[in-house]
């Protein structure tokens, strides 16, 4: 029997209705990340594009390289150098101390309860920054801080008599370490957990000493993670502003404070120099983050 027009319509119907299903599903999937994309667009991409353009303009909106040229002169260059020094110092000290802490809890044979306690504390401390952190340090290590007074009264040590001040390069590095060390602990703990007992045993059975194992096996395995984490710590410190500003006000000339001075709207402000400063920071933090991502990818590949 030849198919009737009606039966023909019935056979094509499923294929017609099947098409919108997957499309609808894809649309719904994308809908979930719309808030994030909007946020990223409004508060990251557009401002970045705006300041990148602004870095090449003068106050009248004309193209110029003068603002970028200022980055290599006088106090602006000094600000970059101090920022780089503070970031590098806090990243290096934070990386060493954080690695030692993580090593102690993962391979040090300490009681089992210490590890989750340290990781939980690190999770909190790594995010403790800004005005509260600066306030906490002023209350403890400030000239009349609790720890300073305890040291003076009970140990006979006055940190300030040695020239130490919290409102200085060393003070800022010390304060940054409060979040840098925990961040290092959080990042490097999984890498240390990835060091397999069998590698040590294989090295031993092949005649290797502890030194052989460290030089030839453990350090090459850990190096990308440790270096990558150090770069992340560096970028983390380099971009910090609230802690530094709340702690030192404008007494320490670091890039983020100098940048803030350009855009806050007082008589000395120069928004276009601010954009140029920000562009310089983007370049430095991007290089640092790219290094971190590249090293992380290498680590992941080896683990797979």
């Amino acid at each position, binding site marked *: 029997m030849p198919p009737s027009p009606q039966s023909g319509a019935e056979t094509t119907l499923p294929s017609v209705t099947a098409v919108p299903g997957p499309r609808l599903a894809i649309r719904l999937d994308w809908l979930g990340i719309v808030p994030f994309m909007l946020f990223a667009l409004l508060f990251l991409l557009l401002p970045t594009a705006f300041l990148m353009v602004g870095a090449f303009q003068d106050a009248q909106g004309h193209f110029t390289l003068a603002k970028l040229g200022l980055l290599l002169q006088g106090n602006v260059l000094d600000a970059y150098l101090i920022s780089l020094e503070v970031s590098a110092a806090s990243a290096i000290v934070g990386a060493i101390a954080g690695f030692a802490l993580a090593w102690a809890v993962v391979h040090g044979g300490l009681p089992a309860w210490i590890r989750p306690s340290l990781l939980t504390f690190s999770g909190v401390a790594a995010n403790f920054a800004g005005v509260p952190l600066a306030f906490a340090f002023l209350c403890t290590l400030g000239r009349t801080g609790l720890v300073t007074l305890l040291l003076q009264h009970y140990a006979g040590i006055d940190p300030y008599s040695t020239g130490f001040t919290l409102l200085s390069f060393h003070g800022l590095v010390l304060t940054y370490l409060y979040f840098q060390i925990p961040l290092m602990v959080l990042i490097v703990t999984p890498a240390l957990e990835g060091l397999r007992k069998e590698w040590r*045993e294989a090295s031993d059975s092949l005649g290797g000493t502890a030194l052989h194992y460290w030089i030839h096996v453990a350090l090459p395995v850990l190096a990308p993670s440790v270096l990558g984490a150090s770069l992340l710590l560096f970028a983390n410190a380099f971009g910090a502003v609230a802690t530094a500003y709340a702690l030192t006000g404008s007494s320490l000339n670091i890039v983020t404070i100098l940048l803030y001075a350009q855009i806050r709207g007082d008589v000395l402000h120069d928004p276009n120099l601010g954009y140029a400063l920000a562009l310089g920071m983007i370049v430095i933090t991007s290089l640092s983050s790219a290094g971190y991502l590249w090293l992380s990818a290498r680590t992941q590949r080896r683990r797979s």
Partner: protein
Amino acid sequence: MAFLDIAHVGKTFGAASVVNDVNLAIEKGEFVTLLGPSGCGKTTLLRMIAGFESASSGSIHIDGHDVTLQRARQRRVGMVFQSYALFPTMTVADNIAYGLKIAREPKSAIAERVEQMMKLIRLSQHAQHYPWQLSGGQQQRVALARALASSPRLLLLDEPLSALDAKIRVALRDEIRALQRKLGITTLFVTHDQEEALSLSDRVVVMNEGRIEQVGTPFEIYNFPRTRFVASFVGTLNILNSRVLDEASGLVEVDGQTVTVARLRRSGHGERTLALRPEAVVLESPLAGRNSLMATIEEVNFLGSVVRLRARLQETVLSFDIFNDPGQTLPQRGSRVALGFSHDNLLELEAS
């Protein structure tokens, strides 16, 4: 003294005793397997021989030297791990060369040895690859080459095939055996897989709860298990509780029926535990000179080339296999059948 001599070795972790008074002698060039379930102490024993764990008691001698207190790196023992344990930042060639470099062998000798080992495991073309670029089977072959490169006195393999899929497992199993024969290296292999143990070994050591249950050739272990544990762990086995009626003729009673045991181990009357392999049982009418038990079929499982049947006497349940034959009518569930087997097939197990 044997090449590897383990005398009264024990290991305790706190209050837990993991290995108890183990005595084992392995001759040069032998391939011996430690077989047992998880937690039986086989890996701990292997790790004590490797030097990764210290023995709580007893002594271990390799080639006449007491190594009990020596560090792992002093023992000249090659080790292959279940998880390969290749160094991830080194290439295949560097992994194999690791032990030779540490021993400060001349560069030319190292290169020559590495090339020789890679040819042996047929991975020469992967010399500059990293472990993550190889399959599981290839990684384990590299681990084997790495362990063998320094010409160890003893090769230890800790469940080296467990992480591999079935097909590669069988192929690598044969490869390991062929390599061992070619090099003549004394080898101790740990596994919980009875098929692996039976197919690879010169001798099998069956372990349970930290003790050796039985040591013997695969043939002996499978056909003449001494204990109920060995009988049940190695292959499938029917256990029959019996009572001796006449010791001289080996006549015993099982669930109200009589059968004859060719060899009774112990003298005297009383209860005896007997074992019967499923492949020894056939469906047949009672015959003179053979044992016969009447049973009721409980289950018929068609598995393709074989059919597995389960039959009940009273308390005793027997499993047995028959080959598939399209011309044969299979017994139905509930039907009464006669099960025949020879007197020799009934094994008396040691009292537990």
